[in-house]
């Protein structure tokens, strides 16, 4: 009898115990969340000899990926499955097949945060380190390894990492080791807490290792780079400056030049209600930094050097002559002014008027060749710091935006562009392109749900492919539907016939889901239609895109 009771008691308490455990397990699991996103792009390609488009052997190409991230309080883990069957035209051809291209686990415990597996990271402005992704362009230089972040006191953040970089479905040869420290003085020092002037100082060391397997040259196996930066702000004014230095790093990019590299960037801004001013300048000398010295194209970059030019969105401006940064050498300046004429003022009218001015200038650096017979340093040139070389790019543009009535809105843009095709695009014996670009955009709202947007664009040039005109009509039925028609027209082309690039597209979106279907010819660049901007490669044919966030 007793033994039965005992067994029963034990049984009940066991059930009770396991119930408690189950409850705890439930509680823990119930805090967990899975989020993610999905995208698939598919294109059927048509032969189109008029614009030189060829049909690939596969006829039909698809890119897709799915991100899954599990988060539970301080812990998170995730994977990305990617599939290229085969990669769409314009994408790097290294993408082939399918697989888990990204997986990580990370936890944060108090001031310590650890990530193992793949991760992205940026130090400061990215001059010495930036691992990032741009899925629409197939750019991904994620690091696979270990990263540790630690908050030492208030305002002091330390980051250390080691790993190898992603090269499509493989990894690059080189090992990247990097350390960064940031100090926010106003947070760290109690006495500065309430000061109006805010100061942040940061420093980085980034080094790569790659075996010397060259029979002819003695190559540095370890290459170190350093960066120091400061951000100072006081009310309406702020200053962001960074300087970076790199020891000799002979590579395919720089023609196995043993010269040390350096890069400097400075940006200042002033802004108040209705007015914003920004000025920036940079100088880059021999600063291509990759974890494989023989890598080319967009592969295995450790650092990031943004172009100091306006990132245009109108397609003729964005896709025909966009400047690309020159890591081997470049000096550039850029200025921006944004001003809003207030409502009710003479130029502001009833709704106010917006004006944006932007100008950017980019030059090669000055280079004096070194005679290798007189100098055995294997430095290929010396450079005068303050002297410029040939012109690479110039863009001067103005944009005026105006709400005309409750239903009408207008935007007018003019840009004047000089573009060095030889250096930026690597073409031989071609003249500098000088182009005038004008864009008029209008939006008309029929009512709360129905609206139409119209764009007319003209690009006039006597060089390269001659003149272009673009017309866009976009009708949207908020919040789910849109239809758009685009025609780009190339005329007065000294090299070819007049050609239309037509494109029709329609889309539906609901919550985080979006489906777009398009047919026609399309140029490469940042492509904005139906309310979304995405960087797309050049294409021709029938195109389907599905994206989802959950």
């Amino acid at each position, binding site marked *: 009898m007793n033994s039965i009771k005992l067994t029963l008691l034990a049984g009940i308490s066991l059930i009770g115990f396991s119930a408690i455990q189950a409850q705890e397990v439930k509680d823990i699991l119930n805090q967990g969340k899975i989020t993610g996103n999905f995208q698939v792009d598919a294109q059927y390609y048509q032969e189109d000899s008029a614009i030189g488009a060829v049909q690939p052997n596969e006829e039909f190409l698809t890119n897709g990926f799915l991100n899954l*991230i599990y988060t539970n309080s301080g812990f998170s883990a995730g994977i990305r499955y990617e599939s290229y069957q085969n990669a769409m035209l314009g994408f790097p051809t290294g993408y082939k097949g399918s697989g888990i291209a990204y997986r990580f686990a990370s936890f944060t415990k108090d001031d310590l945060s650890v990530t193992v597996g793949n991760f992205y990271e940026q130090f400061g402005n990215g001059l010495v380190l930036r691992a990032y992704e741009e899925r629409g362009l197939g750019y991904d230089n994620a690091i696979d390894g270990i990263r540790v972040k630690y908050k030492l006191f208030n305002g002091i953040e330390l980051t250390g990492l080691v790993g190898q970089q992603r090269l499509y479905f493989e990894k690059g040869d080189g090992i990247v080791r990097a350390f960064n420290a940031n100090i926010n003085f106003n947070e760290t020092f109690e006495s500065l807490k309430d000061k109006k002037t805010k100061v942040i100082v940061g420093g980085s060391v980034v080094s790569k290792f790659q075996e010397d397997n060259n029979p002819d040259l003695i190559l540095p196996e370890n290459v170190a780079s350093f960066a120091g930066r400061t951000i100072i702000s006081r009310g309406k004014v702020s200053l962001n400056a960074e300087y970076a230095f790199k020891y000799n790093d002979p590579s395919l990019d720089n023609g196995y030049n043993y010269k040390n590299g350096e890069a400097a960037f400075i940006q200042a801004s002033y802004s108040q209600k209705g007015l914003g001013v920004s000025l920036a300048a940079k100088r880059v000398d021999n600063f291509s930094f990759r974890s494989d010295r023989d890598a080319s194209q967009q592969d295995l970059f450790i650092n990031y050097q943004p172009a100091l030019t306006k990132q245009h969105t109108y397609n003729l401006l964005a896709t025909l002559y966009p400047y690309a940064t020159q890591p081997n050498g470049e000096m550039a300046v850029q200025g921006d002014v944004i001003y809003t004429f207030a409502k009710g003022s003479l130029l502001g009218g009833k709704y106010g008027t917006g004006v944006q001015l932007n100008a950017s200038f980019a030059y090669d650096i000055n280079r004096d060749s070194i005679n290798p017979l007189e100098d055995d340093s294997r430095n290929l040139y010396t450079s005068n710091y303050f002297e410029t070389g040939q012109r690479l790019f110039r863009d001067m543009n103005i944009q005026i935006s105006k709400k005309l009535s409750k239903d009408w809105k207008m935007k007018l843009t003019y840009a004047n562009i000089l573009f060095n095709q030889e250096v930026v695009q690597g073409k031989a014996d071609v003249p500098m392109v000088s182009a005038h670009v004008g864009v008029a955009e209008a939006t008309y709202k029929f009512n709360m749900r129905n609206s139409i947007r119209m764009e007319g664009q003209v690009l006039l040039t006597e060089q390269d492919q001659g003149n272009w005109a673009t017309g866009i009509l976009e009708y949207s039925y908020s919040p789910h539907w849109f239809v758009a028609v685009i025609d780009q027209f190339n005329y007065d082309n000294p090299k070819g016939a007049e050609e239309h690039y037509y494109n029709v597209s329609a889309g539906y979106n609901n919550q985080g889901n979006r489906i777009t279907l398009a047919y026609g010819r399309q140029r490469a660049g940042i492509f904005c239609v139906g309310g979304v901007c995405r960087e797309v490669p050049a294409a021709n044919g029938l195109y389907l895109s599905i994206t989802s966030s959950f």
Partner: protein
Amino acid sequence: MKKVLFGLLVVFGFQTNTMAQSKLPAVEVKTMEFESFNTSEISNDGKPIIVNFWATWCSPCKRELNNISDMYEDWVDETGVKLVAISIDDARNMGKVAPYVNGQSWEYDVYIDPNGDLKRAMGVNNVPHTFLLDGKGNIVWQHNSYSEGDEYELFELVKKLSKGESISK
């Protein structure tokens, strides 16, 4: 063993039913003065929050935020909503975020996500992408892209949330 399996089934079955609604992930972003800021600190006193991903180079994004800006004061007065604008501008343009935001006289809380860390954590494919959080911080709605007039639907949802109504379908 069977019991364990059954237990696990129950636990996971339960889990799929009542799994926590998503909240804003805790990610380090930057203020417009480039100071570090953790998104777990975003709050609005039990009122709804709009989180909008945008960029200075994205015209539909700017159209959306400028259109909302015209009505934002009324929205705040009526519902107490707060709009948090997350710029995904990288080093190329992040210095232009403050001049643009102030030049347009936006009254939003603006943060910069220069390396896409928050964008990745929230599963954002393209900009503009808008999330709506209820008073408890649960993500209850999202929308990708912008067409003229989308702001009216958004405000209807905000009004419902501010009254404590559910907006799930």
